[in-house]
């Protein structure tokens, strides 16, 4: 049974529909990525899930509890990490965590253990006496994650947690998320950096203009829809030879030539046929250094999905207009 159920969620701000009929489920232990441009409705959806906002219509159930009518029960099950967290002046890392542990109702030894555990997990032990104001962005994000983990929630809602992190901090953050996923936490994470989600998530959810446009694994999105496959071939000599070879070889099309070789398309990407063609490429004497199957990057897939959705919407609008015209 899904641990998170979102059904036909709607949220308007005046005339603007921020979220329109969003529905999805998250299975226990799943890491679900949430992708969308600025203003697409990610943060609004996440805030409703975190009981911080109220939907105009629809329903969110987390761990069997309705977020609107049983917010206290939901809050005990979720850990929320906003896109930017505020700091308290004159407050050390330890004091910050200790305060939130108290606020989550932890007492005595249980509180001390919880603070010690999250500091150890997020590698904050050495900086526990430092004031929050003096922390780097990466340290701050680890502290914020630690705070979200204090009450041992089963579901983590992370809104753009890696935004603004340097590459090292980003790698470290990804490692922590994977560790949490391995520990059985259900994680719902949004990001602008799509390649990050590709590595971290079991599935991704694309939102555009408040509507879900794709829900599935990152691999399924990156796979080209038709049965063809594109291979990048690198040569040690003149790439023109590759063009001539492609002309003479049936079942192979040259997509383009590059400085060091080119891209070949196999319209029927049956593995045996591709293997045979590549064997012949070498056997025919071309100085092949490398060949590899090209996959769409998630960014590319994201943009193509958005474009496809936009075209569909336009067609739907024109069809409706034609229909209305006929009716009238």
């Amino acid at each position: 049974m899904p641990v998170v159920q979102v059904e036909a969620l709607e949220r308007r701000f005046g005339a603007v529909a921020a979220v329109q009929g969003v529905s999805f489920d998250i299975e226990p232990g799943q890491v679900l990525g949430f992708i969308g441009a600025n203003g697409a409705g990610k943060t609004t959806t996440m805030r409703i899930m975190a009981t911080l906002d109220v939907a105009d219509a629809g329903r969110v159930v987390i761990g069997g509890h309705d977020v609107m009518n049983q917010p206290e029960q939901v809050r005990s099950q979720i850990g929320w990490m906003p896109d930017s967290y505020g700091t308290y002046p004159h407050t050390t890392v330890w004091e910050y965590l200790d305060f939130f542990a108290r606020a989550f109702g932890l007492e005595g030894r249980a509180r001390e253990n919880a603070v010690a555990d999250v500091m150890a997990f997020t590698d904050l032990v050495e900086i526990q006496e430092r004031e929050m104001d003096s922390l780097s962005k990466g340290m701050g994000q680890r502290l914020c994650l630690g705070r979200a983990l204090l009450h041992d929630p089963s579901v983590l809602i992370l809104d753009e947690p890696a935004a603004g992190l340097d590459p090292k901090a980003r790698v470290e953050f990804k490692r922590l998320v994977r560790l949490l996923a391995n520990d059985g936490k259900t994680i719902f994470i949004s990001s602008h950096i799509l390649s990050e989600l590709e590595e971290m998530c079991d599935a991704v959810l694309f939102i555009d203009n408040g509507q879900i446009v794709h829900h599935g694994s990152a691999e399924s999105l990156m796979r080209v829809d038709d049965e063809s496959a594109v291979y990048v071939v690198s040569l040690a000599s003149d790439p023109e030879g590759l063009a001539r070879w492609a002309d003479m070889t049936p079942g192979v099309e040259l997509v383009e030539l590059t400085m060091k070789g080119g891209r070949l398309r196999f319209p029927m990407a049956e593995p045996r046929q591709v293997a045979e063609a590549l064997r012949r490429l070498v056997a025919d004497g071309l100085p092949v250094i490398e060949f590899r199957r090209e996959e769409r990057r998630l960014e590319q897939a994201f943009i193509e999905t958005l474009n496809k959705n936009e075209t569909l919407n336009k067609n739907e609008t024109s069809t409706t207009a034609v229909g209305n015209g006929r009716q009238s």
Partner: protein
Amino acid sequence: MKIFSSERLSPILVKELRQGIRSKLFLGAFLVVQVLLFLYGTTLLMSDGFRGDSSSALALFWSALGLPLLILVPAMASQGIDKEITGKTLDLLLLTRISSYRLVLGKWASVIVQSTLLVTSALPYLMLRYFLGGIDVWGELRSFAILILASALLAGITMGFWATKVNKLIKGIAVLGFLWFGPYMFVILFATRRGLGGMGAGIGLVLWVYAFIALLMMLALAASRIGPPAENHSTQIRILALVTLGAALSIRGSSDVEVLSAVFASLILAFSLIGALSEKVRAVPRLYAPFLRQSGLMRWVSFPLSPGWPGGVAFAALVLALTPWFPAWAGEFRPGAFVALVATFFFPAALVRTLLRPERRSLGLYLVTQVLLTIPFYVWGAARAFDHTSVTYAIESVVGFFPPVALVLELGQPSGYTGVAPTLEGVVILLGSVVALVRVARLEWQGVVSRGSSGSAPAAALIEPQTVISVAEGSLS
């Protein structure tokens, strides 16, 4: 490291104290108090014949304590909630087990503790005055307590007011004005130790009762502004207003005491009525479940306490209907003024509810409408000043029916005013406002509890009353 590790203290109090006593503002205030008291002590010791109970000594001593406690501390408190909002830390707090009311209460309590710390640091100088001047120690200690209480009251009220969604410039001016008034309030409270002027000792009790209710109301208001949408603070505010009403109806004494009681009560009630009439209806079934769960008569009785403006209309009607029974107005009931008073609250509400789109129906618009409706009064005043009899007559006979001008004209009884209320027109305006409000309120209330007919109806509108109750009780999986 673990300076404040007591398990018994509220987490928010611990946090606020950790931050507060390390802040430059508190340290600055503490140092200023110490410097002033040191100068005071030195002057006291070096001057011949300078007694601790002389008027100069009293003025110096209480100024050194009064200024930081009655101006600086409330100013600090006013920023407490705002800092959490602008610092983006509020959401994180609301997701813990701390309710928004406990959050506000914790912040307010930390201000009291800081005030107490400041006052306690003056105790050695109090002893010095005692040895030099033979002052009444118990009386002075009582004044210390009054000072802390006054500081706490001002802090709570500024905190609540600053949390409202009113424009920051307006809030700033209002808080500054209030803090300017603060020291005078202390003087009044201080003076009530011996009675205030000729008003008698009972006036002190009246002041404290209303100040305490106002404090609780402002704290609840602050909590309502920052709380998550599923929290209900309206009922608490309305119950406090009913307590105010009860106090105003039952406090009896000299005519001065009764009039002052009526004035303070009216201020608090007006504040709560405006809030009740302009409060949005939130599409959260659990807010309404406790009221819908009641059956028969109890559902009607509890309806005025239900959150949202439809319940607010019933609440306002209930409160306004009882105001003629204030002891201060005994034997002076004026039907014209009463009609104008009720219409003053209902007429702008009816305009806002019937003429504007739902998303625009807010407290700000209610107040703007109210202000716009007063414009004829200023025109009337100007016409009177320039002796334009025809204009004054026109306003009195046409616009003067409309509240709040009618109320101002009726209560003020300015010279030359012929009096237009009660008239049939005034009653018609009031009844029209009530009918319009009840009609729209019924529609909105039905939207909350029954199946909505349009797609734009709130979420709660899609749920039957019984379902609202079962959802709120968590029995719907």
